[in-house]
């Protein structure tokens, strides 16, 4: 029953003088307590969950973060770190009576080191700004979430975010060398280091992907890569989603490691078509975006191979980006797809399940059948090369489709686990999928994870209620997911 301890500890009495103390250490301009203003912080990219915090702190330096956390520690107040609030699993969802610590005022790029191929940045710097700062040296930061122009490196570290190019280059965890963090008692420490081969436990590895439950990142040293000598990109259309799925399997089976393989189905293409200068074929059932990079000769050869495989798999049309501008348009469409779905549907849920690559065609077929049965449209736009699905379940709140869509969405996630995959590829567990964790992990597994968490944060003040199932959210007994009474009543919702 260790699992329940966190929640009990967070409900400790809240002192009265802490807002004044916060204002004293940060300055009154950096603490928000006004009710209307606080409401703008009540949710992140997943708006179905909302909790109004007691205060928001906007520190400007590591010292100020440590001071704010120190106040929390002394008064037993929970705190939740917040980057750009683009998370899709409710990771930055505030805790009632707790404070939100926004890292949006720590946005300096401290150092770009082109010799050792690294950059030192503050946590509020956006993912894309790191690449922009490195561009003049011919370098870039590889992980590229679709939200890269807005999401912060701190959020990326917390979520171990991925992106289209993580197929070849790996996730955030493969590109972070060191992180300065403020622990839950207010101490500042550095995990990792300049060398990639440090003896002892990989504490940095444990921290990356911990979803803000182990401490607050205040400085990150990331690895930079040289821009590849050659990049070539194509969009291959297919007459069915299954054929596109088979093509992905065939490309990978041929031993080719593309920089990216992304899939969009027709609904997603429609959404993108409504928003940007779309380069996608409006009426194709599915499109694969395949990008290869590396030395020009290798790229040329493999690019031909990929085109041949796509044709063998029945591709109806292949469009090759003629220049950098056309490539940018392809990616712009792909990366805007999530939000563009807002144009074709009033509401939507986005899932993040992973399936073994070989089962892509199968899972897409089953999702389509489930969608038909539920009478709900599902758009697909995802990292096909990783088998990381992002089914977007489209519905209209006003037409009373919410419950049906929600059920379908949960069933899709569970289907992924059933097919030997995972609940989440890159968006994290957060508040959203915490109750589903027992579907993937036994009680022992969860208890072990919790011990690690408690080693960092024994008082359980740091982003409580996330990742691990709690009785408050999931009902009295942990175990296979069942709807919480609040959910049944429609007060809270899951994706």
């Amino acid at each position: 029953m260790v699992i329940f301890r966190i929640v009990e500890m967070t409900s400790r009495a809240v002192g009265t003088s802490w807002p004044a103390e916060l204002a004293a250490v940060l300055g009154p301009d950096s603490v928000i307590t006004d009710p209307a203003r606080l409401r703008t912080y009540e949710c992140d990219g997943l708006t179905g969950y909302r909790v109004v915090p007691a205060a928001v702190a906007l520190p400007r330096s590591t010292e100020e973060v440590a001071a704010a956390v120190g106040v929390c520690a002394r008064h037993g107040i929970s705190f939740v770190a917040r980057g750009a609030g683009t998370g899709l699993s409710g990771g930055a969802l505030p805790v009632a009576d707790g404070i939100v610590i926004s890292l949006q005022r720590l946005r300096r790029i401290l150092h770009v080191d082109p010799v050792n191929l690294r950059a030192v940045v503050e946590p509020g710097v956006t993912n894309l700004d790191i690449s922009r700062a490195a561009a003049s040296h011919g370098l870039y930061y590889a992980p590229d979430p679709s939200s890269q122009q807005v999401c912060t490196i701190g959020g990326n570290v917390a979520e171990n975010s991925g992106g289209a190019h993580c197929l070849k280059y790996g996730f955030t965890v493969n590109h972070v060398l060191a992180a300065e963090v403020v622990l839950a008692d207010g101490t500042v420490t550095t995990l990792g280091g300049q060398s990639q081969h440090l003896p002892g436990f990989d504490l940095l590895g444990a921290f990356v992907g911990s979803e803000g439950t182990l401490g607050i990142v205040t400085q990150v040293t990331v690895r930079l890569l040289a821009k590849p000598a050659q990049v070539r990109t194509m969009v291959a259309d297919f007459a069915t989603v299954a054929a596109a799925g088979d093509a992905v399997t065939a490309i990978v089976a041929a031993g080719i490691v593309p920089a990216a393989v992304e899939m969009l189905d027709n609904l997603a293409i429609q959404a993108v078509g409504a928003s940007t200068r779309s380069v996608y074929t409006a009426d194709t059932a599915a499109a694969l975006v395949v990008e290869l990079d590396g030395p020009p000769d290798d790229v040329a050869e493999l690019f031909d191979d990929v085109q041949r495989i796509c044709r063998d798999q029945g591709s109806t049309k292949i469009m090759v980006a003629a220049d950098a501008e056309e490539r940018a348009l392809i990616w712009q469409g792909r990366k805007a797809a999530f939000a563009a779905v807002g144009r074709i549907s009033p509401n939507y849920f986005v899932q993040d399940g992973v399936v073994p690559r070989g089962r892509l065609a199968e899972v897409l077929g089953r999702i389509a059948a489930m969608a038909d049965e539920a009478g709900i449209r599902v758009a697909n736009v995802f990292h096909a090369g990783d088998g990381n699905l992002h089914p977007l379940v489209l519905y209209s709140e006003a037409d009373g489709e919410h419950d049906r869509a929600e059920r379908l969405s949960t069933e899709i996630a569970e289907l992924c686990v059933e097919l030997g995959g995972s609940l989440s590829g890159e968006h994290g567990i957060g508040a959203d999928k915490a109750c589903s964790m027992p579907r993937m992990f036994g009680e022992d597994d969860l208890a072990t994870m919790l011990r690690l968490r408690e080693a960092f944060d024994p008082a359980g003040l740091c982003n409580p209620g996330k990742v691990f199932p709690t009785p408050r959210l999931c009902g009295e007994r942990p175990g296979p997911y069942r709807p919480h009474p609040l959910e049944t009543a429609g007060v809270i919702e899951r994706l």
Partner: protein
Amino acid sequence: MTERTSFDSHRPPSRELLDDCVHCGFCLPTCPTYVINGEEMDSPRGRIYLMDLAERGEIPLDRTMSAHIDSCLGCLACVPACPSGVRYDLLIEAVRPQIERHVPRTRIDRLVRRAVFAVFPHPARLRVAAVAGLLYRRLGLAASLRRLGVVRRLPAQVRAAEELLPPVRFRSLFGRMDAVVPAVGERRMRVALLEGCAQRVLFGDVNAATARVLAAEGCEVVVPREQQCCGALSMHAGREDEAARRARRLIDTFERHEVDAVVVNVAGCGSSMKEYGELLRDDPAYADRAARFAASVRDVSEVLAQLPPRAERHRIDARIAYHDACHLGNAQGIRQQPRDLLRSVPGVEVTDIPEASICCGSAGIYNLVQPDAAEELGRRKAAAIESTAPDVVATANAGCLLQVRRFLTTDVTLVHPIQVVDAAIRGVPLGEERR
């Protein structure tokens, strides 16, 4: 739901428009106020959230709400940045008048706003103010006052206005243009030119250059004399009735002339004139006429983009940093045409400015009512411009010219793009084109 809303029933922001926001945050990095202070309530996403809450009646229309609506520059950088197609332009335009009606302003804010609207849209009064400002500068009064620290002791808002006054030349103040400028050579178009209220007084040179270039390219240019302010500043500040009144009057004035297009050289005026249809949609006597008028409005660079250059351009060797005025780039989607226009001059090298999408802080009367934020943005913009080491800065909006000039530390020539073309056609060096 509607009975609980905090907005009154006169054109509140619509639920459908609010629902388009999916809270993805893609707009955040383009928003100048968010870039400055990193607070959610001062971001497009946060402002939409506040509007949404007010629409549901969950928060009142009070000073908290107005603070974050007022701090919005209306630069509309968030509109093209939004993948979900949120019409923030319509949202903010719907909310500003609601704030204006329901939230009492502080005394100093009220005074400043009243003063601004008593002067800026009225050429005669502005002329007096400008001459006063001119003498004030000419007599070295400004310098001595500044030395004495008097200026520094003025409230920030007053200081902002003082620092904005351009070094006006007497001639351009009182120069009146002919009512009709005939086309040079065969006539290709007949257009009517908006003089602009502040533009006419402070940047008469730009109007003269515009008329000359249009004529040189085969346009007959009509300049309706009796024209008054287009109401852009009022609209921008949520003074809806005043804006509508001015719009009606301008339509009346221009309808008397049979033209192919109404040409504007001030981005802010052009963007609001293109929205007259929306503004007057509930007025049966004007709705159709307003829509027709709006459809005939063109920025001068749009008109010239359609007319393949006929007049010879002399060479001007200059590196020109082009600054996208928000109301041209974001509001009207006009980015390419002014650059092409500049490039039509041999010898001109056009450079883009880093952080181009971030507003310079001018934004209508913003620099007068929100001086601190405007100052920070102005400095940031000037630094970005200077990082490209230009000889000339070109931008198509009077407000931007004023604002940027105030913060540049190096000696660069500031012009409207049309002045570059004018100088090239006339074969005079840039910066000496004033007659």
